[in-house]
């Protein structure tokens, strides 16, 4: 390690300290200063943190094997030793760049989006806290410290979903959504905690480098223990990255302000599960069964969520299900050992999905400030239409994001999705078919969304009075649009920049060669899907009161998709309600049973004393008799013991 590199690594703690300082400043002074300053402070903190991440990247360019930075001891008890240790390597720095880079853009955007909200300072405190937690998650050098970030981002997600905690259905809808997210995530955390426990007692350490170095020697390939550990890790990942069956929290999470949906519930936090599995790839390589499970869960999530997205009317819910679906692509990829493809798609997805969410936010913002602010109709695509003339910049960038997501070349999404499909083609045909179908559905629902929102004529008063958002919001959109266009250049077929870069951490595996058949099929299918969307929604634009033509064509299937395959209802009736009943019954019986038992005890004692009381006659001969019997008993006891 040369001196310059060492110097740059010295700056590492600033990665956290900037957002930490930002949030403390806002906590301490929030009530004193003019509101927009809170956003400027928080954004500067995020920006400075991005600069630090770039410094780490530059340092790694000189010597890409990375380093571990230890800043002290956290948890030491018995043989367990968990330091505050941080992993700076090509994988973690890639994540840092995505988190702080996209994070900064979204902070800036939020200054405009949240302008005038009375809780804006609180909002930016949460947002900075999220950066701290997320950076901890991606740079921790051991599992427990990763878990601190892991739950920390979960907390921020909870707080930000419930940011407007007095709104939503019945005044508690938003608060319910936040709580749901946290609880479902905790189900996944159970897996992570147990996996850590098992790892610790097998290997005596929870530090990444040591765990991975020893695992190969300790666990035979496919041994039950390593399968259990990796499946538990998968459970954790499924919670955070919204995979079957734990995805139900993410659509509800859209109750949060739109910048939150973009940052936390699309670009960064929800990718933590993918990061966790990629980071633990050495363990997964020892458990082929778990790998298959990972890719099957990923692929089926991708397909299931894509079908649901085709039948939604809320502009953000479409994107939410789309996010679940795309996370499924990534999970499927890393399950097949295509780590680079998975991370590549993670990055490009962060670009175009953040873009889509922010642009959707711009649409909502444009409608809201047109003077109509009924929150239900604001996000209803049935009430939109014709926005391309009124919001030209938003329309342009939305189109870019949609095409990128649909996988149309040469936009970013095409390259990353194609790598995943090519890997699936080689590894597992079932996964390939599911992912291809999902990709087809993706292109279709994005086409449907673009026509419903931007094309045709305005279908409501609100849509007529919409206007373009201010530059503080559109400039981040333009930057993200640029990234969504050129992002594919990160890992072009044959060049594999990202592949070589991540190889320093994930191992230099065989680099996938470009598969022309797969690429051509995918592109043709995507074009076909867009054509289908045009045929349904473009030829005859929807009228003001018209129903979605898809309702008729799909029939009962449409209801199934629209209702999200009734997964929520299954959880409601299968888990939630029985639990509430059980709780009420137990709470009641807890008091009743013990009160009864106590009463019985008191009665017995009372009856007993009534009998005894009769012996207390006060007559001398009874007393003498008692003494004699007692003496006899003592004598007998002494005699025979």
């Amino acid at each position, binding site marked *: 390690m040369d001196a310059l590199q060492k110097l740059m690594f010295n700056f590492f703690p600033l990665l956290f300290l900037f957002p930490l300082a930002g949030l403390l400043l806002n906590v301490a002074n929030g009530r004193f200063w003019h509101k927009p300053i809170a956003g400027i402070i928080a954004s500067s903190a995020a920006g400075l943190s991005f600069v630090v991440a770039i410094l780490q990247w530059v340092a790694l360019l000189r010597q890409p094997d990375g380093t571990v930075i230890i800043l002290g*001891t*956290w*948890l*030491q*008890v*018995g*043989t*367990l030793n968990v330091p505050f240790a941080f992993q700076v390597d090509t994988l973690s720095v890639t994540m840092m760049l995505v988190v702080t880079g996209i994070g900064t853009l979204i902070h800036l955007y939020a200054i405009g989006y949240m302008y005038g909200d009375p809780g804006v300072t609180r909002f930016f405190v949460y947002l900075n806290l999220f950066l701290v937690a997320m950076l901890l998650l991606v740079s921790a050098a051991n599992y*427990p410290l990763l*878990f*601190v970030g*892991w*739950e*920390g981002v979960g*907390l921020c997600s*909870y707080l930000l979903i*419930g940011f407007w*905690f*007095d709104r939503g259905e019945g*005044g*508690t809808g938003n*608060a*319910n959504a936040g*709580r749901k997210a*946290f*609880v479902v995530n*905790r*189900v996944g*955390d*159970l897996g992570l*905690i*147990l996996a*850590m*426990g*098992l790892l*610790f*007692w097998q290997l005596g350490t929870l530090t990444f480098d040591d765990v991975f170095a020893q695992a190969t020697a300790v666990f035979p390939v496919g041994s039950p223990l390593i399968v259990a550990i990796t499946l538990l890790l998968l459970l954790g990942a499924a919670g955070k990255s919204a995979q079957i069956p734990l995805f139900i929290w993410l659509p509800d999470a859209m109750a949060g302000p739109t910048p939150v949906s973009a940052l936390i519930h699309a670009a960064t936090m929800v990718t933590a599960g993918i990061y966790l599995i990629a980071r633990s790839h050495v363990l997964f390589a020892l458990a082929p069964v778990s790998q298959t499970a990972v890719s099957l869960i990923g692929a089926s999530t991708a397909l299931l969520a894509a079908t649901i997205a085709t039948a939604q009317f809320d502009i953000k819910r479409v994107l939410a299900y789309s996010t679940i679906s795309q996370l499924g692509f990534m999970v499927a990829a890393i399950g097949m050992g295509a780590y680079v493809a998975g991370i590549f798609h993670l990055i490009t997805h962060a670009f175009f999905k953040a873009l889509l969410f922010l642009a959707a936010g711009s649409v909502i913002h444009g409608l809201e400030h047109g003077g109509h602010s009924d929150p239900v109709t604001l996000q209803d695509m049935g009430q939109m239409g014709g926005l391309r003339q009124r919001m030209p910049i938003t329309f342009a960038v939305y189109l870019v994001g949609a095409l990128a997501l649909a996988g149309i070349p040469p936009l970013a999404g095409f390259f990353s999705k194609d790598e995943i499909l090519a890997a699936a083609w080689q590894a597992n045909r079932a996964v390939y078919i599911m992912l291809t179908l999902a990709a087809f559905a993706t292109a279709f629902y994005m086409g449907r969304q673009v026509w419903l929102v931007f094309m045709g004529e305005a279908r409501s008063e609100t849509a007529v009075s919409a206007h373009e958002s201010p530059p503080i919001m559109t400039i981040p959109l333009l930057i993200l649009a640029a990234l969504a266009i050129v992002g594919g250049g990160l890992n072009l077929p044959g060049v594999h920049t990202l592949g070589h870069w991540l190889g320093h951490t994930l191992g230099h595996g065989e680099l996938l060669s470009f598969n022309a058949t797969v690429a051509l099929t995918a592109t043709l299918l995507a074009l076909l899907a867009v054509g289908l969307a045009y045929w349904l929604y473009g030829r005859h634009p929807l009228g003001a009161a018209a129903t979605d033509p898809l309702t008729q064509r799909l029939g009962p299937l449409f209801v199934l998709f629209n209702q999200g395959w009734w997964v929520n209802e299954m959880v409601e009736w299968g888990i939630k309600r029985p*639990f*509430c009943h*059980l*709780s*009420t019954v*137990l*709470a*009641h019986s*807890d*008091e009743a049973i*013990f009160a009864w038992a*106590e009463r019985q005890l008191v009665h017995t004692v009372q009856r007993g004393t009534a009998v005894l009381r009769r012996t207390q006659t006060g007559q001398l001969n009874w007393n003498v008799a008692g003494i004699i019997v007692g003496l006899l008993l003592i004598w007998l006891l002494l005699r025979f013991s």
Partner: protein
Amino acid sequence: MGLLTIVTFLPLLGIIWILLQDKEKDDERVKRIALGTSIVTFIATIVVLALYDKSEAGLQLVDRVSWIPAWGIEYHMGVDGLSILHILLTSFISMLAIASSFPIIKQQVKQYYSFLLALEIGMMGVFLAQDLFLFYVFWEFTLVPMYFLIGIWGGKDRVYASIKFFLYTMAGSLLMLLAILYMGITNGTFSLPDLIAGRAAFASAQNLLFVGFAVAFAIKVPVFPFHSWLPDAHTQAPTAGSIILAGVLLKMGTYGFVRFNLPLFPEASAHYAPTIAVLAIIGIIYGAIVSFAQRDVKKLVAYSSISHLGFVMLGIFSLNAQGIQGGILQGINHGISTGALFFIVGIIYEQRHTREISEFGGVWMAMPVYSVLSLIVVLSSMGLPGLNGFVGEFTILLGSIGAASLGPNAWIYTAFATTGVILAAVYLLWMFQRVFMGPLDNPENKKLRDINKGELAIMLAFLLFVFWIGIAPSGYFALMDASVAELVKTVGSAVASLP
């Protein structure tokens, strides 16, 4: 007279001083004396900490004189890694409990603060006594002031609750007394170190003796199904009473297991470990589920204690370093977090005179500072990493998953226990939502005032340790390392000799 005797009986000086005050005339002065005494006692325990050598496994700062020579009873006080954190917790919680009573207690002020200080003497004695007879005296003594605190200054059903509290604890203690007498008479001494050294003399009866102690402690903890007194005692006790009850009194039970059951009856401990672990896990899950349905905030917190203490018991009976140290620290954490929760409930109860959850909603808008601080405490109670609760919970679960005492299937125990982590989020966030979030639609709640400086100071004192233990727990674990290592050696060989 050694330092530990001074620490224990310092509050007595405060009591005498308070009783010398003019009758009912100078309540303010009484408060100042009580708080002053508790602060001095807290400082005295800090001095103990400063003199304490953490590399030493055995008893330190020992005070030992003969008391009733004919029976081998001694006045024997000492501190080690098992008790050092407990005495710090005692003086800390007592201090905050006294301070929190200032705006609340307006009647019979002299008696009230005298009882609180008397309680502190008893608790301190319990954690420091190293003679079984002396321990028993302190143990029973704590009942008296608590009985009056609930019975005089409590809520509507205070008499019922206080008698129930008294009878439950008393009943449990009788078996313990028999066990103590048996051992003392067999060995001719009541001194704990001597009894541990000579435990061969009563090894054959150790299963019975273990149960004798275990019932007394299990009622105090409380371990399922001995918990029925706790919700009543908590709902009826005044705020300070609940803070001390949850903060310290319950820890006397868990401490008793570590101090007496483990070293005196190691084979019996290993033998009963799976049974107790099962009861602990039932407590974790049952307490959490019952907690979810409560309508009274205080009762909800009371049932959550049963769940939390289940984790502590599971840790202790993992019988390894992680489990025991995690268990002890989690006991301390529970004292801080749940003490703070009861304090939080007290603040809002004083303003609204109700604890019905349905009466609240949207409190965040009326009391933003109070709500944020409450959120942190709730998160600490839920075991959010970075705060104190996680450190204990994680260490306990880690200990139990590798516990030889629970056999090769220890991970199954742990898997069940870990569901408590999910359930904690379920009932605590549900409570938090119904009180603090949602619309502020009850007109009564619009008049709520945010916390004042005094309340803020007490909250910050709690929060200091919430963060400190969460971020830098190693210093706390280091205090116990040597003593627990010694203990684990004893019980470890007993576990290894299990069939």
